[in-house]
């Protein structure tokens, strides 16, 4: 059985069951001081450690490594944690929210305002006097940044973003040309398909905004099609009559992914 019962809950776990893959770089004196504060609060850490499950009754720290270091210093037996769903994107988010990782901005697609904001952050953080965020952003927007495969072209824009600064830049920007829409799923027969197969295809059309399908409720429409009594259908024409159905204008697109 999945352990989803744990997920999202504040839990009081044995510290000995939690391991950490990353050391905490905070100074000893701060950790010791924080440990003292936790002990004085009756061994209660009011800011939880964020963990993921690595096996049955086993956990690993995802973020708030500082609190983990403090709990160890304080020699706590039980520590308050939140167990999160271990999807990579969730782990990344937890690190970002704990300020243990920076959110990254896609330089290939970001808006001008976003680029200015990020550049302002870099200028302030590193004291880059030669970079003028607005000017640099204008130059980036005027470039063919969608085609870039790395940050080297930045250094040729004459805006103070030199080769020596690329390491810092790579910590906040990424480069990736916008991905093409995923390939369409295979055609299925509406009579044969499972409810999930119908939903996946409607959802594909809906999320990729194909043929006006962005306006449908893929869940309800999939239910309606799956539950319809299709035994006697000779064509797909009964579909617009379902509740909720699809208007006839959408049937052409519908037929690209469905057969009878």
């Amino acid at each position, binding site marked *: *059985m*999945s*352990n*989803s*019962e*744990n997920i999202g*809950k*504040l*839990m*009081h*776990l044995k510290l000995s069951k939690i391991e950490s893959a990353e050391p905490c770089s905070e100074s000893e004196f701060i950790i010791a001081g924080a440990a003292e504060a936790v002990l004085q609060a009756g061994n209660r850490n009011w800011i939880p450690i964020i963990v993921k499950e690595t096996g049955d*009754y086993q956990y690993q720290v995802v973020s708030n490594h500082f609190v983990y270091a403090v709990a160890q210093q304080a020699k706590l037996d*039980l520590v*308050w944690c939140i167990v999160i769903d271990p999807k990579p994107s969730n782990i990344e988010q937890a690190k970002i929210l704990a300020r243990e990782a920076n959110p990254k901005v896609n330089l290939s697609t970001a808006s001008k305002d976003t680029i200015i904001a990020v550049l302002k952050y870099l200028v302030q953080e590193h004291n880059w006097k030669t970079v003028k965020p607005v000017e640099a952003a204008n130059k980036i927007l005027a470039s063919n940044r969608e085609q870039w495969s790395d940050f080297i072209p930045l250094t040729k824009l004459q805006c103070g973003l030199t080769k020596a600064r690329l390491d810092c830049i790579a910590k906040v920007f990424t480069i990736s040309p916008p991905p093409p829409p995923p390939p369409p799923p295979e055609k299925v*027969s509406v*009579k*044969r*398909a*499972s*409810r*999930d*197969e119908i939903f996946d295809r409607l959802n594909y059309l809906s999320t990729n905004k194909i043929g006006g399908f962005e306006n449908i409720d893929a869940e309800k429409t999939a239910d309606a099609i799956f539950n319809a009594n299709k*035994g006697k259908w000779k064509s797909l024409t009964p579909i617009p009559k379902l509740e909720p159905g699809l208007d006839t204008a959408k049937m052409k697109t519908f037929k690209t992914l469905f057969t009878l």
Partner: protein
Amino acid sequence: MMTNIDWDQVLDSISENAAEPEVEDRFVKPLLNALGFSPDEWVQQFKTGKGPADFAARKNDEGDKFSVSKINPNLVIEVKGRVSGKAIINLAEGTPMYKKAKEQITGYLLAPKCQTSQWGIITNSTDIQLFRRHGKIVLPATNCMRITQNNIIDIITRIKKLLDNQPKALTICIYNDKGGVGKTTTTINLAAILRQQQKKVLVVDFDPQQGDLTDSLGLQEGKVKLSDCLVDESLNVKETIQPFNLKNKAGQLVKMFDVIPSDSGLSKFMGYEYEAKIEKGSARLRDLLDIFVRHYDYILIDAPTSWTFFSKSCVIASDVILMPTEHNNFSSLKNAAKVIKYFLPEVKKLRQDGGPIALPIFFNRHKETEASIKRANAEIKAIITVKKGETDILDPNLLPYYWPKYTKAVTDTTIFYVPEYEVVSSAAFSRKPAAFQHKKAAEYYLKLAKEYFLYE
């Protein structure tokens, strides 16, 4: 053995319009091989005594080849084609074909010549589901799974693992969201009667507040407390067990059944701070009881009223839910519908193995009069009637749990009942289940056990 089969090739070889014989040859035969059955360990067209099952299989015993003796199968399989004639067969859960196949496999598993069968499979090579039989109960052992080239190995591994680790016990949760319907009395008397039928029984009292069951058997908490096991995996849950003994005619103490008593520590988990210590939350009890499913024939869990951590734990840990109701207690009838419509789907989603399932309700402490039956049936009708468009129909999702014998042809509204019997409730003071003391009580509960569980 599984590694010998190229499943990509197997699946590619089955045509989209494969009829039943093609699915049998190209899919089911390799499947049997992968599940560990050699060619002389299965037969086709097995006569169950209630129609032929497409396949039946069993491991050979010494000096007995199943393909020759053709008796006592362990597994039966109902195969469908991907099409039949020109009609496409969709076996996804909930479709009419699925319901039909499920009915068929249930029929075979309960047929005279399948009394030793423990497993049933339905498949058309696009979908597959494993069922398990325990006494009179046939229940899903996996959800109905759609087969793809990506998951076929996982599906077969999952089925094989279940077949190789046959659980012995049926875990029954006695629950109704409404209190005062006799859950505890039902639990101890059912335990007593199952023991009289030579079954090995474990009773779990998971009621944090009352511990009525523990008290009524005159038991104390054990060396290790269940409440401590919930938070500490290093404890041995076997040490929570207290035997319920009775003196035989010679004056010797004889063990009747085992009990995991309620303990003083359970109620603290009603507070949030303690509940936060239970890893896996309400799925933890299921983990704890897992070591017992290969040891007992029946595990009965007495669940407390209302949908809390405790009752949810009991339902998650169970195979089937037995719901006592009272014919003159409208809430007990209505709340059973709540369990079926809302609580069980919630747990099924979490479990992902098709379980647990509800059993049809029964009337407890029933005093039959024409008028009261009429009233109860009118109330039930109101509970299970839904609108379909403009017309009223009986909700097919509720009907089988209230009027299991009702069909379109025969409007039979019989509901099983345990008659009212004064000594049953007063037996609690004697620290002995009524079914052990009074012939009549024993008779009533034996009927209950036979109605739901025991294979005759």
